[in-house]
């Protein structure tokens, strides 16, 4: 068998120019897939961590009621004893911290113009301890010990439409948890850019205490749990379920994967694009290799005839041709992985940026992630493609009529 494989290996390099052309195509396909897949993987990873760090956290805790009905008044379905729940959650291993949040909405006015806002109230210290980014593009983040003025961060789009800047005052109007109308004056501490223009046009953030005073409630909408690693999400989730079952309010836990709709859509889209690219590479390698291998078969017709005459089983001829194709695939895949990774390194150090995608306001760094599973997958793809490509020439070669093959010119 060793000698037979040696024969296949030497045959691969028999017509060097043709083999180099095939290797060029195979390795190019692998390198292309690695670069595209590595870029997609970087984008997906970045989007995942951005999604988590931008405030989604790894796990969110709501009351079960929150998902059963719509709120009549703000915080109708909020968590009452959230400090006790937070304390319980903090005892679980891998939990870095817990941040309370209130989601609310209302009107914001500068005295001349009013606009709708989507508000988010946070505990600045808790958010910072979890490493959540505040996305402040100018000014400063919310202070955990504000002075007499209530501070606010507003979206860049909202600031522009209200024609306000850092240090300017605004009045927030909202319906309290009792259904009454309440207002609070805020001073703009900073401008935030979420990266999504529609969000920036409505976004406003104040501290939790300020929101509870505005909404006249001690409740919160949810607790956001931050972990030491995204990989521990499932384990912590499984631990938290029984621990929170004894709370006066029934709780519902949501993993970040349940809440990150946009992330899932993007991942599905990228997976679809990558699958399509993989199919293109597969068929490109398949079609061109069939032609090359058929040419090889015709050139070696007399030699194959002689091998068959000497008692070589026809299955050996099939195996020989397939081995040669698979060897080309393996060599091409190795070259492709090396070239793809080298190009990836070059791209990563070049500091290239891609233009912002639709709906985004910031450009994305063009970085390529080195993904071992992608290297294995791309390599297997071209190897399988070449194995498929060799079936027709291999079967044809094995079915040659010996006498005719020996007389082939």
């Amino acid at each position, binding site marked *: 068998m*060793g*000698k*037979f494989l040696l*024969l296949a290996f*030497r*045959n691969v390099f*028999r017509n060097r120019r043709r083999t180099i052309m095939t290797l060029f195509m195979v390795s190019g396909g692998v390198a292309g897939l690695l670069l595209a897949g590595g870029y997609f993987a970087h984008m997906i990873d970045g989007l995942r961590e951005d999604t988590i760090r931008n405030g989604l956290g790894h796990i969110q805790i709501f009351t079960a009621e929150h998902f059963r009905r719509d709120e009549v008044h703000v915080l109708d379905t909020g968590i009452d004893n959230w400090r006790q729940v937070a304390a319980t959650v903090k005892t679980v291993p891998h939990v870095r911290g817990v941040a309370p949040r209130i989601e609310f909405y209302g009107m914001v006015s500068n005295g001349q113009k009013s606009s709708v806002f989507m508000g988010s109230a946070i505990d600045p210290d808790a958010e910072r301890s979890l490493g959540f980014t505040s996305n402040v593009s100018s000014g400063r983040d919310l202070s955990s010990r504000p002075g007499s003025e209530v501070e606010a961060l507003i979206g860049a789009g909202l600031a522009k439409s209200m024609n306000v800047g850092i240090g300017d005052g605004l009045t927030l109007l909202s319906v309290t948890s009792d259904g009454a109308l309440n207002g609070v004056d805020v001073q703009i501490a900073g401008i935030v850019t979420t990266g999504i223009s529609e969000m920036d046009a409505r976004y406003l953030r104040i501290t939790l205490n300020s929101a509870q005073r505005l909404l006249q409630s001690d409740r919160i909408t949810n607790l956001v749990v931050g972990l030491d690693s995204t990989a521990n999400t499932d384990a912590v989730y499984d631990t938290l379920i029984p621990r929170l079952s004894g709370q006066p309010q029934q709780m519902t836990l949501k993993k970040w994967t349940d809440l990150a709709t946009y992330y899932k859509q993007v991942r599905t889209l990228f997976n679809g694009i990558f699958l399509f690219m993989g199919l293109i590479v597969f068929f490109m390698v398949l079609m061109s290799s069939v032609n090359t291998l058929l040419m090889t078969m015709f050139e070696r017709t*007399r*030699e194959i*005839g*002689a*091998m*068959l*005459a*000497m*008692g*070589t*089983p*026809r299955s*050996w001829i099939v195996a020989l041709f397939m081995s040669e194709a698979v060897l080309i695939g393996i060599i091409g895949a190795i070259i492709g992985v090396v070239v793809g990774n080298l190009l990836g390194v070059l791209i990563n150090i070049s500091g290239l940026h891609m233009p912002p995608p639709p709906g985004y306001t910031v450009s994305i760094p063009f970085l390529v992630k080195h993904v071992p599973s992608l290297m294995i997958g791309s390599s297997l793809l071209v190897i399988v493609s070449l194995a498929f490509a060799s079936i027709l020439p291999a079967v044809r070669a094995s079915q040659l*009529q*010996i*006498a005719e093959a*020996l*007389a082939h010119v």
Partner: protein
Amino acid sequence: MDYLVKVEAVSRRFPMDHSYVSALDNASLHVSAGEFLAIAGPSGSGKSTLLNLVGCLDKPTSGRILLDGEDTSGLKPARLTALRRDKIGFVFQTFNLIPVFTASENVEYPLLVQGVGASERGKRAAVALESVGLLSRAGQRPDLLSGGERQRVAVARAIVHRPALVLADEPTANLDSHNATQLIDLMRDLNLSLGLTFIFSTHDQRLLEHTPRIVRLCDGRVAEDTLRQEVCHG
């Protein structure tokens, strides 16, 4: 009498356009073990067709061929493959050596197909190469060998597994007269020293001088079968 090869009223016709061309017509031939036999005749007389049929590379349209007592006409492909592998050695007009193998590896090939172990293959290939005087060229690839050397390697490959029958179809067609005579002499030496049966085809009259038995074909028929007891080798 037991013959190694019995060709009994064999015909072979090939389809051509809307009719048939008869390459071999009712040919009969008996060959005993250890014979050294030449099939002679002009181009198109049916020499290659006859050798292909005897070598189980083709099937007769009618008649039957017995190899070592076994009727090959009705055998399944796998059995024919096994027969060729174990009982027949082939020498081809165009050498047909595997170009990416060395001379030694080419000679080993029939043993590889038989499943012989690597060290045994090496030893037997060396013996075969020595018998054709090319042991010193064992490591050379065919493209570095002369035409005469290539054909001697092909002869070594044909005898390495000690087949009952060696078939050589126009083995000298691509050689000059000097190398052609040397090759026939070499085959005759091997025939005498190893007791192998050789059947070779040629259209070169000069090569028949040292051949004890000559079967002449003409238009697909056996025109003459001459046994020359007086031939003295060497």
